[in-house]
């Protein structure tokens, strides 16, 4: 039995979680130079936030009655603050747009903000019920943002120092960058705690502007261009969200998200805001045709990519989709969203084959996996949502680990190209090993992502979505190709190659080790996660539970597989397999010059030898595939908006 006292405590902690990151941002903003003090502030503050997030999440997950965690009915003061800050964001965007002469961004900003302001200030907005509610899904998101997000911030405190060490041409504004990361986390906590659509919209816009500022960090021409691309795409999504918000308030008299999702039977017009929110979610989650902003986002220092790709930005989009998922069941919106998601999954995985920049491969893989999540949410079935939430969890952990490792490799080798990672296992064994676990986590059999994909496949088969099944099976073929060739590149053992100095600072390892262990632990823990984290979400969203998607004997077999993966290396050590074999050089159809990189040809001349990976650029290259993909999906999005939204009037 929980006392009212504990409840009040938890709600106070929620307040703390939303506000404290902003305070952290101000403190960090004041600490200009990279110093032990700043790192200490980030680590102590970060772990405080993490502990608070875990405290709230665990309490919510363990509590019997999730309806307890709602509050904040009277919000006059809060509303004034929100309005003031929205105006501030709009002015900021306008100012920067004029400064960099990108005037189109002003239009999107004004179109998105002014109608909402008008609605708020003229008192047309519906006074909702509780503005804040923490349910199971919010608790799960708390864990992602609180644990993965904070680990990335801690990683960033060490990374930015090295970054400016290597990039002397970039002005050191690392305090500003780190502060932005905390603002981002604060906005994330705010967004997932809010039930009031106006609040959600406000935090939604903060994340858009924040990501824009982070992408433009280096202030090079490329960074500025890419940041404005991210800005206009996200503001366009923001306009969609604003339209949905206004429609809810003025025509449906709904102010809260939970009212909307609970009102499926009451009004057939509910689908209009749902479609608009889904449209906004597509932009945030970088689905085709809006993928290019995420690809451009990699110009920024790696921590921002890690943050945008794993714990925050793109996850907001799918968060919204999963929230409205039950309303999309068997509607045109649902079908279009699943098709766009499935298409994105397949197309992005083909594009990922053709690029060799490590961060770009990760970016395409993010887009592709988010496509899968989008497709799952779009089916609107219980199994679909199960798979979607699982994918969100596993993807957040694996992707943030991979980005951080690529960042460290770049700091050590001054390159993040996959071709340069040839023989990484000899050059940087520790990072190579972590990276292998991260990559395996993304696609190999007993690891998490595959479990979720498997569930997704079952969900699609059961819901009879033939096209999705086909997208998924072909997409898994190409996914396997691009990950496995990267894995192979890392595993290559080159003779007469030496270990490089691993300059990864300890603060980064503080972040990398927990993430690595989480990938491994989550392999074992997913049945538990299913019962304690995902089933309650289904219960809240659909008021029903499902039998275990993957259960019984399969789980045991998967455990055996995980055990085998770890036993084989250990076992071979003990049994000394291959210890008494004769060593030789690899066969090069000539005389191997001894270092695997040169051979002596028939004229006795030494010639260089290099094995590149396959990219098949001429078949699925960006030049060939990207534009058609964008056009096809843009047509799909347009059709969805015109038929559903236009049809309602």
């Amino acid at each position, binding site marked *: 039995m929980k006392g009212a006292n504990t409840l009040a405590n938890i709600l106070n902690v929620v307040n703390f979680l939303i506000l404290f990151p902003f305070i952290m941002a101000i403190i960090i903003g004041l600490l200009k130079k990279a110093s032990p003090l700043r790192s200490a502030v980030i680590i102590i503050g970060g772990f405080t936030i993490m502990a608070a997030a875990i405290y709230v999440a665990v309490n919510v997950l363990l509590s019997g009655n999730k309806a307890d965690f709602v509050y904040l009915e009277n919000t006059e003061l809060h509303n004034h603050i929100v309005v003031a800050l929205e105006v501030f964001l709009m002015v900021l965007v306008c100012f920067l747009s004029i400064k960099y002469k990108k005037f189109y961004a002003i239009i999107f900003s004004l179109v998105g903000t002014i109608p909402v302001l008008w609605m708020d200030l003229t008192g047309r907005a519906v006074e909702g019920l509780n503005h804040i509610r923490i349910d199971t899904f919010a608790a799960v998101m708390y864990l992602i943002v609180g644990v993965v997000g904070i680990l990335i911030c801690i990683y960033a405190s060490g990374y930015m120092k090295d970054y400016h060490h290597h990039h002397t041409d970039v002005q050191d504004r690392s305090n500003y960058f780190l502060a932005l990361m905390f603002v981002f986390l604060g906005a994330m906590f705010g967004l997932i705690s809010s039930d009031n659509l106006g609040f959600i919209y406000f935090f939604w816009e903060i994340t858009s502007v924040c990501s824009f500022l982070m992408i433009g960090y280096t202030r090079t021409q490329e960074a500025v261009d890419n940041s404005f691309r991210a800005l206009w795409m996200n503001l366009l999504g923001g306009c969609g969200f604003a339209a949905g918000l206004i429609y809810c308030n003025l025509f449906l008299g709904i102010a809260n998200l939970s009212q909307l999702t609970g009102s499926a039977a009451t009004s057939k017009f509910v689908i209009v805001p749902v479609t608009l929110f889904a449209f906004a979610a597509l932009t945030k989650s970088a689905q085709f045709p809006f993928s290019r902003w995420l690809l451009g986002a990699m110009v920024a220092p790696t921590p921002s990519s890690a943050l945008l790709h794993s714990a925050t930005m793109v996850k907001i989009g799918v968060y919204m989709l999963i929230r409205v998922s039950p309303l999309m069941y068997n509607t045109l919106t649902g079908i279009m969203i699943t098709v766009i998601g499935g298409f994105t999954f397949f197309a992005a995985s083909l594009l990922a084959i053709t690029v060799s920049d490590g961060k770009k491969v990760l970016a395409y893989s993010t887009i592709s996996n988010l496509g899968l999540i989008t497709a799952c949410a779009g089916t609107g079935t219980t199994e679909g949502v199960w798979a979607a939430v699982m994918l969100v969890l596993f993807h957040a952990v694996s992707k943030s680990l991979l980005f951080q490792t690529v960042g460290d490799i770049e700091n050590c080798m001054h390159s993040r190209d996959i071709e340069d990672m040839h023989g990484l296992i000899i050059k940087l064994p520790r990072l190579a090993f972590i990276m292998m676990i991260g990559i395996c986590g993304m696609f190999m059999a007993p690891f998490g992502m595959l479990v979720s994909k498997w569930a997704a496949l079952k969900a699609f088969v059961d819901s009879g979505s033939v096209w999705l099944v086909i997208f998924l099976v072909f997409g898994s073929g190409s996914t396997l190709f691009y990950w496995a060739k990267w894995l192979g590149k890392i595993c290559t*053992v080159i003779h007469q190659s030496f270990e490089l100095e691993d300059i990864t600072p300890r603060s980064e390892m503080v972040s990398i080790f927990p993430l690595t262990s989480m990938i491994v632990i989550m392999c074992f823990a997913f049945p538990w996660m299913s019962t304690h984290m995902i089933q309650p979400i289904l219960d809240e969203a659909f008021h029903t539970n499902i039998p275990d998607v993957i259960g019984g004997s399969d789980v045991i077999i*998967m455990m055996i*597989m995980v055990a085998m993966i770890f036993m084989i*290396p250990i076992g071979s050590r003990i049994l000394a397999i291959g210890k008494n074999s004769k060593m*030789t050089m*690899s066969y090069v159809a000539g005389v191997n010059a001894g270092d695997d990189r040169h051979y002596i040809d028939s004229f006795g001349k030494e010639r260089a030898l290099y094995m590149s990976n396959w990219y098949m650029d001429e078949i699925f290259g960006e030049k060939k595939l990207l534009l058609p993909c964008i056009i096809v999906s843009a047509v799909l999005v347009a059709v969805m908006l015109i038929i559903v939204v236009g049809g309602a009037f």
Partner: protein
Amino acid sequence: MTVSIIIKALLYVLLAPFVGGLLSGIDRVFSARMQGRQGPPVFQPFYDVYKLLNKQTTVVNGIQVLFVTAYLIFTVFTGALFFAGGDMLLVFFALSMSEVMMVLAAFSTNGPYSIMGAQRELLQMMCYEPMTLLVAIGFYYANGSFMVNDLIHASVPAIVQIPGFFIGFVFILIIKLRKSPFDLSTSHHMHQEMVKGLTTDLSGGNLARVEIAEWYDTVLMMGIVGMFFITNNPISILWAVIACSVVFFLETLIDNLFPRVKYITMLKVTWAVILVFAGTNLLILNVLK
């Protein structure tokens, strides 16, 4: 129940290498006769592997052995999972995992022919992966379960409902059994532009392990072919055996008829075949359901 599962798995682990080796021998005899040669004795593959096991193993590096061992263990595991009546989807996921181990073994050597073989092998996997997953889905549509144990109690053979999947699967078996025209990554014949591809830098015991793993794999593939014909009627086993023999003969015939194609042709042709046959079949099943 548990005991019978363990017995089935054990039987596979013990018997599959003999069946697989024998199939490999028969394949070589067939091929020879088609080419008008006498050919080796049927038991030749066993002699070969025995000899390999007794040879000194030279390795390029230590990790190579690890990956090859993992490949063998996971292949055996995959087959045991199938014959013990496990989940079809899991069988195919485990299968691609074991294949990745083999690819990594080749990558780790850093030899040009090995790596080329590895890249080609990955491409081959990309070609057949959609079909293997679709086979599992097809069985699910036909009989409502992913578990092999439930599927073998069907009242009507699955082939009646999913002939398109069968055609697609027989087609990708050409890749899986390393038959020309799709034997891009390695082949049974030496002296080619890729030397021995994937297995160039393997020798002695290592090579023997790969050979044995492929025997296990062949038996697993034939088991899946048989699944299309198995029902709760014991006589259906006879049909399954006949079907396996016909398919195996067909694969050998194709091997001898067609020259190797370019990788891009392979990708286009296999994906087209999968889409046309299995995709259409899936669409029809979904409409009828």
